[in-house]
């Protein structure tokens, strides 16, 4: 997350709104995957993991079933490895369920170019052949560079290329909020 040096211009979601947004996403996910078996909620590191945990908890409370979960780290699947950037920190991936035949919901905080979720799809495929992969993003800020469309969106916002969108989560930051700022 590029938080350092970010000049916040607008708060587009506060804590209360975030909770409501995630609640709505949970209901949409249940509606879509409800009849399906082998559902798994997989967070993309790092902030997608915390959003995925919140979604998982709520689905289990509402549906009173145990749902599989996992985390995925995309550092090894990036397409900008040779762009002269510093090696991204790698963290462990953890998919402790049978990926073959699973219906996987990938969860991330911000959908931007689509390159992150492209990498995440590749990473999941290295574990097996899921029946389906869906994609949930808390914020869709546009400017796609790949033909990627989310299945569940918390909030879609118009942003400029030189703006940055940052999601703050209680688990790792001070509070829950989504902000737009200048890079």
């Amino acid at each position: 997350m590029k938080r350092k040096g970010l000049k916040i211009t607008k708060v587009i979601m506060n804590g209360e709104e975030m909770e409501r947004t995630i609640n709505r996403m949970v209901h949409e996910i249940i509606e879509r995957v409800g009849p399906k078996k082998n559902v798994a909620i997989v967070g993309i590191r790092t902030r997608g993991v915390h959003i995925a945990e919140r979604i998982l908890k709520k689905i289990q409370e509402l549906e009173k079933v145990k749902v599989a979960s996992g985390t995925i780290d995309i550092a090894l699947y990036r397409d900008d490895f040779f762009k002269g950037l510093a090696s991204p920190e790698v963290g462990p991936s953890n998919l402790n369920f049978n990926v073959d035949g699973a219906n996987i919901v990938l969860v991330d905080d911000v959908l931007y170019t689509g390159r992150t979720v492209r990498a995440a799809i590749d990473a999941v495929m290295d574990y097996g052949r899921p029946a389906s992969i869906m994609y949930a993003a808390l914020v869709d800020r546009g400017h796609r560079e790949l033909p990627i469309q989310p299945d569940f969106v918390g909030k879609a916002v118009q942003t400029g290329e030189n703006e940055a969108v940052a999601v703050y989560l209680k688990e790792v930051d001070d509070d829950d909020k989504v902000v737009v700022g200048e890079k």
Partner: protein
Amino acid sequence: MKHLLGIENLNRDQIMHILETAVSFEEINQRQIKKVPTLKGLSVINFFAEPSTRTRMSFEVAEKRLSADSYNIAVSGSAITKGETLSDTALNLQAMAPDCLIIRHAVSGTPHMLAQIMDCSIINAGDGFHEHPTQALLDAYTIQKKKGKLDGLKVALMGDIAHSRVARSNIHLLTKTGSHVTVAGPATMIPKDIKKLGVEVTYDPKEAVKDADIVMMLRIQEERESGLMYPDRREYAKFFCLDEKLLSYAKPDATVMHPGPANRGVEIDDNIMDGDRSVILEQVANGVAVRMAVLYLLLGGSNS
């Protein structure tokens, strides 16, 4: 960091960063599909001018699991047997634009020389009596997994310290991370100035092993030794072979390590080597993850 030539010129943070990165790669080795696309399109040459099973295989596995293209050169099949100098060989390899060269050579300092004349990253896979940095890193990774830390441990390092690059790299690493190293062996096998590296020296194996958390045995390297260092293998084994009795001086939960290949019954007894305190095969398994981490960090763009 562009090259990995030795542990001596690394600082503690760099060492810990490599070890932390290796954790993520260990998971890949447990997957059904043990491959990630990270180093796709990069060429890595494995140039082993000395025999090797473990290290060469381990590097090759690491390279392939990261999707790099790996090429192997053996001296017996190379133009070196026709009289080409090493630097000419290196410049010719350089002309084929590899991204990384893994070098093992009997002459200390060879990787450093190659790093000066080649453009690619150089990884030292063992140079003479000097260093074997990836072995020390995988040993440290194994220790950390077993003991949960790398500082404050008592480590006994026993055998032919004089001829051992494994010993030198491990001494550098373990003293940098704050462990206490005692070296032991016959007086002919202990270099005079080894204390300068911050270790304690004893010629009594019992004293070295006493209360040790880690007992690291080194191989008797007959191919390097002059034949005057000890009377014979039986005599050496009588004093320095790690058996139940000698190991009983260590802490009850002591971990036994050996970089391989081991001479069973000479420096280490069968029962100990195959026993439940031995992590010798775990060292080998961890070696792949650690070498993946090193390749990833060296070849991944411009890092600090």
